[in-house]
């Protein structure tokens, strides 16, 4: 039906988008896995990070790849503070309350952006976007290739952090058994906030990698938040491998359904997968079976 060359090109493009989804999902799944809360403000965090990259480039001439050294650390601090001083005191530890608190935060952030920066679509031009890498008969824009490589690097760093450091051990301990972790002297509130900070930093990395080939508007997070949820639910809430595989898979699904169903109907593929997974396999493909 379609030429194999087109299919390969679409699939590869889907994988490059999927790598970014995977990064966003990694942050979300870490927050879910440790705190057992669904962070509805994740998309708005991405939106804010995209604006940060945009303004750093426009006002200070900072390249988005240099911004990788500035934006993720800043968002780590913001995420840490948001969990510790806003979400935890307001949520009272109740699942649905936390969902509402993060919804409230996302309403505030989205509309703050709309108020300050209007609904104009903004994007940046960097010289790297004009460079194309030839892979056989397919050519990919350099930022997309960088995106994939950087996602792999971040994934590896993440894995090292979780398995090789004391912080990673503490995070895993809290995720598994928070009362036990408290008893052995781990500050659970601190670990909660650290996880939220790391999750926010992940989404900020995704923003730096995304901005060269994408755009930013106050509503840009809306689309991403559902995709990130789908990725996380598909991979299994709290599963890191699941987030990576799920992200890549959804990138390809989106690219294919865009090819077959056209631009406007193409988004439906992701949502239908989301509903089906929620209904039939809410623990996801890699999730552990527990409550």
């Amino acid at each position: 039906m379609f030429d194999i060359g087109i299919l390969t090109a679409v699939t590869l493009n889907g994988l490059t988008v999927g790598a970014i989804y995977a990064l966003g999902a990694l942050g979300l799944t870490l927050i879910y896995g440790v705190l057992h809360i669904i962070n509805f403000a994740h998309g708005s965090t991405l939106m804010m990070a995209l604006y940060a990259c945009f303004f750093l480039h426009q006002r200070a001439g900072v390249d988005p790849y240099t911004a990788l050294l500035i934006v993720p650390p800043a968002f780590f601090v913001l995420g840490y503070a948001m969990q510790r001083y806003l979400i935890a005191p307001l949520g009272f530890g109740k699942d649905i309350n936390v969902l509402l608190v993060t919804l409230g935060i996302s309403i505030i952030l989205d509309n703050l952006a709309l108020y300050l920066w209007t609904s104009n679509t903004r994007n940046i031009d960097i010289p790297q976007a004009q460079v194309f890498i030839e892979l056989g008969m397919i050519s990919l824009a350099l930022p997309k290739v960088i995106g994939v490589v950087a996602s792999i690097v971040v994934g590896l760093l993440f894995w090292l952090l979780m398995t090789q450091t004391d912080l990673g051990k503490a995070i895993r301990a809290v995720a598994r058994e928070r009362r036990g972790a408290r008893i052995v002297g781990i500050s659970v509130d601190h670990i909660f906030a650290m996880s939220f900070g790391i999750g926010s930093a992940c989404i900020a990395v995704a923003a730096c990698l995304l901005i060269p080939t994408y755009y930013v508007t106050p509503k840009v997070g809306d689309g991403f938040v559902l995709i990130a949820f789908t990725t996380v639910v598909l991979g299994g809430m709290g599963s890191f491998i699941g987030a990576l595989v799920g992200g890549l898979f959804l990138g390809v699904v989106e690219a294919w359904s865009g090819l077959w169903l056209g631009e406007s109907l193409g988004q439906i593929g992701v949502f239908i997968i989301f509903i089906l997974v929620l209904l039939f396999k809410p623990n996801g493909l890699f999730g552990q079976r527990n409550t």
Partner: protein
Amino acid sequence: MTNMKRQTQVMLVLILALVLIPLFVSSKFWMGFWVMLLFHALIGQSWNILGGYGGQTSYGHAVFFGTGAYVTAVMQTHFGVNAWAGAGVAIAAGAVVGLFIGAVSFRYGLRGSYFALVTLAFAEVFRVLVNAWDFTGSGFGMLLALKPGAAHMQFADRQWFYYLVLLLTIMATGVAMWLESSRFGAHLVAIRENEDAAKALGINTFRVKLKAIVISAALAATAGVFYMQYFLFVDSHIGYGPSMSISALLVPLIGGPGTVLGPFIGALSLGVLSEITKHTMGDSPGANLMAYGVLLLIVLRFLPNGLMGLFRGRS
């Protein structure tokens, strides 16, 4: 029981005050303000029945609202059906969508955040569909022809739209009052408080939740019908976009979820807040919603029972 009686008295006074409002409002602007206020009370009450009393937090109530609005438009423009008859079809369609979403999600035991996410995803699927389909006007949305006259459910004088939405809101509130005094309502509240315990007591939780979502969906679709007749226009973002879903849940959560009067108080406070932000921060987009978000956080922190908690005192 005295509580019940007190509530009925408050309700009667409120209805009387609302009936008299058009006598004191002469400007078109303020009449529009009161119409939208009651519209929000209506959609808020619809959410309240499922989310406030039943504890099933929907993040995608627009899926029912949009169905009501779109079916109204399709019935009139494509099939030439009379507005009132079309409204009946639209409300039934909303109920069917509610039955479907309820049946699949409750069948598979989706609760809490999972239920919230699945309703959101359903609303997005509908949004993409009507946006892509020429039959529903695709990206352009749907317009209704201007045909003033009670026979077409269109009124040149806003006052009559006001009485229409008042009547609908009173009906929805009647449902909420019935929940507070009926066995079905008690079952629903039991599910909200502890679903497993309710099940253990022999309540058919699946059926009760299904009934609640169908009632709630039908009322949200009614709000959709009213919106279509009032504005004569709908597109995929208005109908199925997240902002209507958020309005539907903010109104009762801020006013007082699971209370009869909560949606009125929520709609009133959000309406007043929106006017205040317009006057203080200018008519720039985003300002009023930002204020809503802040109010939501304040209410969640200090008033878990919404603003109603202020009036109830400690009990």
